[in-house]
Every structure is written in C-alpha cells, then in structure tokens.
C-alpha cells in the first residue's frame, strides 16, 4: 500500500511515515504477542521480548535486527493514560475511507484478518484468523479465532464474537465503495469472499495468484468492521465499535483537540509472559492534535505527551542532551524522494540519457547532508524492504556515482557534452526533506551535464500534471511504499495500481520488463518473489531506469523513561497491531 502525496500535504509538514511511526509504537498489548506463521498455519509463541532489546535511554540505538521490545525490564503494570501528540487531525474514524490521522489508530480499534510486516517477513500477526489453508495459489481459507469478542460500546453493536460474515461484509463494502482507500486493491485482486454458514471459515479467492496479498489484506485500510456497524456506517465517523484493544465512544473525539481511546475489557489477547495478564495494559490512550512541530516537541519535553517522533537524528540527540533518560527507537521507514523520467518523451526516450541521470546522482550526499548519516542509498526498490532490494555491493556497479560517464553518455546520445531538460517539482514544498534534497539534486545533475530548465509548480498543479502524466521529468515528494509493488508499478506500462496514472514506465517500451513486473506480482512465495523483483530491477538497470528512489532514512522516536515494552524493528504499520506498552509511574 502506498501513502499518497496528499497524505503528506495534509499532514502539515509531517509525513505519513511519521504519522505511522509516531503512533505505531504507542499501543499497548501483548508482551506475549502471539505471532503465528500464516503460511504454515502453525502457531508459535515467539513474542520476541528477549531478542535484541535495547536498554532504556541514551546512546545510539542498535540497527534493527528484527522484532524486539525496547525498555522491557520490570513487571508490566496495568493502568494509566498514554498521551500521543499528532500533527495530523482526524478526518473520519471510518477505517475504509479515512486518509488522515485516523489511519494510524485504526488497528487500535478494529482487527485485521492477518498482518505481515513488510520489513521483517518473519513477523506474522494473526488477528481474526487463527490459521490458514491454501489449497491452490488463488484460494485462501482462513479459520476464524473463536474468542475475538466485540467490546462494550455505545453504538448498539452486539457484544458477540467476530465471525466470517464480518470479513465478507467488510470486503463487500470496500468493493462497492469507490472512495474507499482499498478499492484499488479489492477491485482487481479479490474475486470473491465467502463466509461459511457457521461463521468459522472465510474463503477469499483472488482472480490470479497475487504475491502481495498478505501485505495488502493486513493493512490499516482493510480492517474488519462488525457487519452491524457497516449497516450504519455514518456512526463510524466519530466513534467505533469493534473487537480491537480500544474503543472510541461517542463524544470522546473533540474535533481539533483530541481523541480518547478507552481500553476494551473484552480484548482477546493476553500477555503470556506475565501470567496471561489482560491486554492492553493502558486504560486510555489520548491522541492530542498538536499541529505545530515546535509545539509537539514542547509537549513531549514538558511531559504532556509520552512519545515524540524527532525530525531527524540531530533533533533526537539535542533532546537527549541534558534531558531525562529518554528511550530512543530507531526504526526503518518506507519513504524516499524519487526522480521520475517520462520514457515516452524526449530526451528521456533515449536509454543513454536515462542511464546518464542514474550515474549523475551521488546518493551518499543525501545520506550525509540531509539525514546526517542516518539513511541508506536506494536502488530501484528501497533498502528497507530487505531482500526485495538489491544488495549495496551490486548497487555500486549498477548505479555508481560517475558524472564523467554521464557526460559521455550524453555526448554519445546528442553529440554535445550537455543536454537541456525540463523538470517539474512542487514549489514551496511543506515537506522539509524535499526542500533539502532539491538544491543537492540540482547541483548534481548540473555537474553531470544536465542543463535544467526549472519548472516549479504549485502543489495542486504539479499533482494534476503528475497524475495526468503531463511532464518530461519530475522530482517527486517523498512517498511511502510498504511493499515493492508500487516501485515496480512505476516502471510498468500502466503505472501504479494499473490505473494509467503517474508514469509511463519502462514496460511501455520494453515488453520483457513489463512481463517481469507482472510475473513478479504473481509469485506467492516471498523468497521467490523477492528474487524475481531483484531480477526485474537488473533488467531495468540494463534498459535505463525511469524511476529513481534516492535514499530512505531511519526514523527516531523518543519515549519518556517510564514507558516500557516499546515494539520495534517490524515497521510502524505492523507495530500498530501490538499493544505491549505499559507505564512505570
């Protein structure tokens, strides 16, 4: 799933990455999170609490090595209210159509069928489903967990166990709701959803094998809502009723101020590491709307919030100096700024010019200057997607920083050592990273022989031109891609989600690449799919790639010293499903 530019725009200088990161690690739930291997259907009790934990406070956190809980000492204690500041106000609490702040909190209110971490394939969180059977590559039979009970609520939804009918009702709704965020996924990728008569089994069929199925079905925009609530969807705008760890009661959201999520006493998960204590530990989670970054930071420093996502490592370090012994979570993100070329327009239709652009960029300069070293260079798939990305050693040969080679390629293509290009970008960007990337990018391209005719545009104009593919080249705002699918799609004939917008990818001029992209989607084994995605990238490099994600940074989230069991290492989207946090105060 990809976040939109608009997500970023509305975020008022806070990227969706930050929204998710900020909220993602804040929930409370299982020290004994039950992680179940979906593919095999076997259960394990790997709660991850003992692996690679980082001591509280201070110092530079270790690089992510998989799931772990930070500041995990002590016996968990129930109770307390957890305050989070967010710069993104809620639009609606309807999980299927919200595009703003709510997205980061829906897993607190509702359940997924299953969730798989995009950054750690070993992390699989079975929620409504307790097991899975796959008789063929297009059929998924989920057996429902029998103790996921809808909590007490004020929307009149009966306190019953969630069943297969809820899954069917949810996907039927999304399929018939064009404004739903997951409409683009459900429409082409889900052929049917059937619920067994006893409500214990759900069968989902895809029209063809689809390798990103688990990532998509478990995302925060595909959460399962009780069927009774779907019948009265208007009530979801400002309240909730479900079987998630918390409930939002009517009146507990005050527009522009805060939303108070109250513990669901019926939540089914227990902490196996703490005598099966009920989860979540927190009585309440209050999400405070604090639009300004300085105010967010101030609220954290003055103890009005329990966590803060720093602007960058320098911001995190400055807070630690002289402050309390904050716990710092350095986690991977899925964001980057990309350079997009239109291979159907001159001069980018010439493979050599695209390759020249690839060699013109010194990606390490962005790592050092924009992110103070806390980022990594990307290939055509960003590095935090693990095996889907090409290894750094290979990238050194596929995308070396070599302005001389750029000039030679330009010379070979045009007879001159320089070439004029027109590049658009959103002017006066409210996204800090974009403003920091732009001058570096302009300088690098200029030094490699590209004479740039600058075409900065108002955001809305730029977005319209981008979606209508009216551009030669564009430096794009940072984007959030939780799987490799969208990066691959940019290089395909029809662009992201097959909607024929944003890009004319290499697939439009090279059928072999188009086939490689389409074939990679159909591979359902993650390891084999990752290999296929890598192979497709090699083909793109050989042809001259048209979509260049530059670098992807780490995110730094600080927590008050008394916050314990902070999930880390699985990506913010997956961490949203965990509710391990407790407060020692």
């Amino acid at each position, binding site marked *: 799933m990809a976040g939109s530019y608009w997500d970023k725009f509305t975020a008022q200088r806070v990227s969706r990455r930050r929204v998710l990161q900020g909220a993602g690690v804040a929930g409370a739930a299982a020290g004994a999170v039950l992680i179940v291997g979906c593919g095999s259907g076997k259960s394990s009790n790997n709660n991850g609490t003992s692996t690679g934990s980082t001591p509280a406070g201070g110092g530079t956190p270790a690089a992510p090595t998989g799931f772990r809980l930070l500041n995990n000492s002590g016996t968990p204690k129930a109770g307390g209210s957890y305050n989070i500041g967010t710069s993104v106000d809620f639009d609606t609490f309807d999980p299927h159509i919200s595009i703003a702040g709510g997205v980061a909190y829906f897993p607190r209110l509702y359940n997924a069928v299953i969730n798989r971490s995009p950054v750690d394939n070993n992390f699989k969180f079975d929620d409504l489903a307790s097991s899975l059977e796959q008789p063929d590559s297009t059929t998924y039979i989920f057996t429902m967990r029998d103790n996921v009970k809808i909590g007490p609520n004020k929307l009149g939804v009966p306190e019953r166990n969630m069943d297969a009918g809820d899954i069917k009702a949810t996907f039927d709704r999304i399929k018939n709701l064009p404004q739903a965020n997951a409409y683009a996924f459900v429409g082409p990728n889900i052929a049917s959803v059937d619920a067994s008569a006893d409500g214990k089994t759900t069968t989902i069929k895809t029209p063809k094998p689809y390798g990103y199925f688990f990532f998509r079905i478990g995302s925060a925009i595909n959460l399962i809502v009780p069927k009774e609530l779907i019948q009265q969807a208007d009530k979801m705008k400002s309240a909730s009723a479900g079987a998630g760890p918390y409930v939002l009661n009517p009146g507990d959201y005050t527009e522009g101020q805060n939303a108070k999520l109250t513990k669901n006493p019926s939540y089914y998960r227990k902490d196996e590491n703490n005598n099966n204590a009920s989860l979540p530990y927190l009585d309440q989670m209050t999400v405070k709307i604090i639009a300004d970054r300085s*105010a967010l930071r101030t609220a954290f420093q003055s103890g009005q919030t329990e966590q803060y996502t720093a602007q960058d490592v320098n911001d995190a370090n400055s807070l630690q100096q002289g402050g309390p012994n904050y716990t710092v979570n350095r986690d991977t993100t899925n964001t980057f700024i990309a350079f997009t070329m239109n291979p159907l327009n001159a001069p980018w239709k010439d493979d050599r010019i695209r390759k020249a652009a690839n060699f013109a960029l010194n990606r390490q300069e962005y790592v050092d200057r924009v992110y103070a070293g806390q980022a990594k260079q990307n290939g055509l798939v960003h590095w935090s997607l693990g095996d889907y990305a090409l290894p750094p050693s290979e990238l050194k040969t596929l995308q070396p920083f070599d302005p001389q080679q750029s000039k030679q390629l330009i010379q070979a293509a045009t007879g001159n050592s320089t070439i004029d290009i027109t590049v658009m970008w959103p002017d006066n960007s409210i996204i800090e990273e974009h403003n920091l990337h732009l001058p570096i990018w302009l300088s690098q391209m200029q030094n490699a022989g590209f004479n740039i005719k600058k075409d900065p545009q108002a955001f809305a104009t730029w977005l319209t031109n981008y979606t209508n593919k009216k551009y030669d080249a564009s430096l794009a705002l940072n984007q959030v891609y939780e799987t490799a699918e969208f990066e691959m799609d940019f290089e395909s004939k029809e662009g992201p989600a097959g909607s024929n917008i944003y890009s004319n990818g290499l697939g439009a001029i090279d059928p072999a690449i188009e086939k490689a992209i389409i074939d990679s989607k159909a591979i359902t084994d993650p390891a084999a799919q990752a290999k296929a995605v890598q192979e497709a990238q090699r083909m793109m490099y050989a042809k001259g790639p048209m979509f260049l994600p530059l670098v992807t940074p780490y995110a730094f989230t600080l927590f008050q010293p008394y916050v314990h069991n902070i999930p880390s290492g699985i990506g913010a989207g997956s961490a949203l499903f965990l509710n391990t946090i407790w407060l020692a105060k």
Partner: protein
Amino acid sequence: MQTFILRRLMVGVVILIFLSLATFVLLHVVPGDPAKLRCGLSCQPEQVAAIRHQLGLDKPLFPISFSGSLPFIEFGPSQYGDWVKSLFSGDLGVSQYYQQPVATALQNRFPVTFELMVLTLILTVLIGVPFGIVSAVFRNSAVDYLVRTTAILGLSVPNFWLGTLVLIVPVAVWGYSPPLGRVISFSADPIGNLKQFGPPAAVLALASAAGIMRLARSSLLEVMRQDYMRTARAKGLKERAVVLRHGLKNSLIPVVTVLGLQVAGLLGGAIIIEQIFTLPGLGQYVFQELLYKDFQVVQTMTVYVGAIVILMNLAVDVSYAWFDPRIRYS
C-alpha cells in the same frame, strides 16, 4: 443616525455579494482538483468521479447557463447557488476534511477564537494606550525613547517567530509549557484557561499594542497642542486631569478606528498563532480546510470574516459620536 446605519448596512450587503463572487471564482480558478487531492496515489478514475459527485463538484459553477435555443438562458442547480443557499439556511454542509457538519465545527471553534481575540484586544488596549500616554506626556525623555524603541521592536518581530520562542524557551529552561492538545474552559478552570490563552494573546497583542501605542502618542500630542487644552491648564486644572479628562478622550478617535480595523488583522494572525499554540479555533480550522481545498468552508469563512469587518467598521463609525459629540450623522 438610523438612516446612516441602514445605508451602511445596505452597502455592506453589496460588498458581501461581491466578496462571495470573488472568493468563489478565485478559489475555483486556482489549479488543483480537491477530489484528486483527497484521493490517494492509487486512486482510480471512478474513485475521483465518486468523490467529485459526493462533493458536488460535478455541478455547474453558476446557476445560469446559456443555450442555443429559446429562452437562451437556463437556470439550474449549481455550486455557487447551493453555497449561497447554505449560507442563508445555516446548513453549511459537511467538511471535506473532518467529515463533520461545518456549522457544528464553527459553533465549537468560535468561542476559542473569540476568547483569543477579546484577550488580545484587552491586552492591546491595556498595553498600548497607557504607554502611549506616558510616551506623549514625557515626550523626548528617556522613558519616551524606551517605549518607542520597544514599540518598534514589537512591530518588527514576526508573531510566528515570537510564538515559537514563547513555546520553546520556557520548556528548555524551566520545563514549562502552556497546556497543549486540549482546551481548558474559563468557567471550569480560570487559571488554567489563562495559562493557555495568555501566551498566544500576548504574542498577538504585542504588535498591535505597539501600533496603538504609537498612534495614541501622536494623537495625544496633537490634541495637547489644541487651544482648549491650553484653556484647561489656564483655568488651573491639574495636568493629570487635563491629560486624562480633556486630552485622552479626544485623542482616542483614531485609536478606536485602528482597533476596529485590527480585528480583521488579528483574525488573520490567529491562523498562525492558533496553529503554533494548538488552539482549535476558526483560524486553525480554515488553515486545515484551505490546505484541503475545501471550497465550502473557505468561502463561508471569508464571507463571515468580511461581515465581521463590515460590522466592526460600522461600530467604529458609530462610536465616533460618543467620543466626540460634535460629530453628527445625517
């Protein structure tokens, strides 16, 4: 006086009609489709169409269209017509961003902005007028120079910068900040309320108080040169009585005029200050909706603010008669 007020109100209505048309046209001329902005990256054309329909953006802009056959002019549903109707009916529709009724949001947020404005105006008057008097009375003294220098500083410092400083310095030095992320009502907790609204009001008031101070000073100096002031002194009145009873009231006319005009300026400044201090008022609401190209809300707020400015100007004009009984409206 009644005729004067009636005439001014009628002119105000005409201004509002033009304002509504200008706002409507300008917002629709600016490039960018709100439906596309609302949709995600993977938005399909039918999703955009559905959102456009939901927002009423698939209707014509104006209720009048021209046709090739008699009667050549057709009237029908339109975006402008729907909006104007909603202004009168009070049903302002649903916010594109918040998905909640706009009227309810305005109702909830108005008290926040109103309190901020009132507090700011009180601080503006309390700071600006007395210092203006002091500065005028002690003209060219050290006190005068100090006050005038401070006023120039107040006018020069941007309020967004000052507001940020007011947030980050106390928390860095004392670990203190005003309450953020919730509104404390005055009736429930007066002290907490003032802790919350005091700093932003002070930041907003600084520049306006500086302006008022300079104006009060120059106006009072002007008045103090008048013959009747000399007469007042000649008949043996104390200087304090001369200044406060005879000088001050007469010097306040330009001050009141500017104070009235400042209300509009303060509403503009509130957009930034409410953002910085996390006050969920009208300014923050409009800012959010503006980013979202929510035509309905931005148009409505522009017309409402326009109406407030017109009414404030009228109130200022009417108040002249109280300050100077020689002024008559006919």
